[in-house]
């Protein structure tokens, strides 16, 4: 299985998917078609956990601005992680700037909804 990198654009984040156990999203997220845009990432993540993932997988999400369909997609993404967490060690860092109140609140929502996932709020 190969690593996957998607470069950032004006409306979409940089995505780095590494087989040694790192999933990272950095930037803004308001794609024209959110679900199409994230499909390659979701596909990769499904395959990654289905094949031979690293002992521990670290997810770093630093999304400074996102639309509501991205928010929905992140819930779906966490659902996916929630389904595989029994067999894998996954730690998630929700990274945000101190002044970015809405990013902080979104992180808190994810923690509340996914109490079985290890999500940490990380102030930059």
């Amino acid at each position, binding site marked *: 299985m190969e690593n996957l990198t998607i470069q950032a654009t004006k409306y979409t984040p940089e995505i780095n998917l590494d087989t040694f156990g790192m999933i990272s999203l950095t930037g803004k997220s308001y794609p024209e078609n959110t679900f199409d845009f994230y499909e390659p990432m979701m596909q990769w993540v499904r395959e990654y956990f289905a094949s031979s993932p690293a002992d521990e997988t670290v997810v770093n999400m630093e999304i400074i601005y996102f*639309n*509501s369909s991205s*928010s*929905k997609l992140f*819930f779906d993404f966490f659902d996916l992680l929630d389904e595989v967490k029994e067999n894998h060690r996954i730690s998630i860092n929700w990274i945000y700037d101190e002044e970015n109140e*809405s990013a902080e*609140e*979104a992180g808190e*929502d994810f923690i509340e*909804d996914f109490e079985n996932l290890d999500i940490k709020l990380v102030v930059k």
Partner: protein
Amino acid sequence: MTVHENKLVSEIESLKAEFIKTTEKLIKDVKRQDKIMARSDKRQQQEYDELQVKFAEVETLQKEIEETQKEVVFTMGAIGESRSKETGLHVKRVAEYSKILALSYGLDEKEAEMLKQASPMHDIGKVAIPDSILNKPEPFNPQDREIMDTHAQLGFDMLKMSNRPLLKMAATVAHEHHEKYNGNGYPQGLKGEEIHIYGRITALADVFDALGSDRVYKKAWNDEKIFKMFKEERGEHFDPKLIDIFFENLDKFLAVRDRMKDI
């Protein structure tokens, strides 16, 4: 008697479990969706508020810039005026006449207003004319006249480097306000519509006001004499269309002259 458990029951039991699982998931999804919407609404409101604040700031700055430009242009006009023999409210009246002509000629309100602001700078080049010539009490000799006439080019040279629309317009006005429709003006000897409309307008406004005002070296002309000269110079010194506009709107010009009399 033993009643065998109906297979249907276990099937229904399993369907029931599936149903509960699915409805729970649906409920969870709906709640999640609501949460996303609520969060999104809240964020939109915040962003809208922030944008309004930013817009107000931009507007204030824009106004500040425009006011500064106006002030700079007006001050430069006043400097030019202080160096010329034309006194009092001359440049202000020229500004008003220019706007009336511009609007009637068909320029839009914004451009006409800009011309009103730029036209007072038509004589800015006079700041570079020596006092000995500028303040000469007796009539100019040909050499004096030659030097005096350089003020149009000098004014243009002072302003031409600017990229500001208002100053660019002022540069054109300074450069071309002594051109004549028949090609006998200066400094370039441009003819007809080769002369920019800003130049043609300011030329008429400037002359109308100069003729109607007392000067150290001459008395004001009466209206009859001015109108006769304008009719003669229609298509010669002045753009014929502008002369027509002038006579069609005569009451407006006279109202401005009355309102802004030199005391």
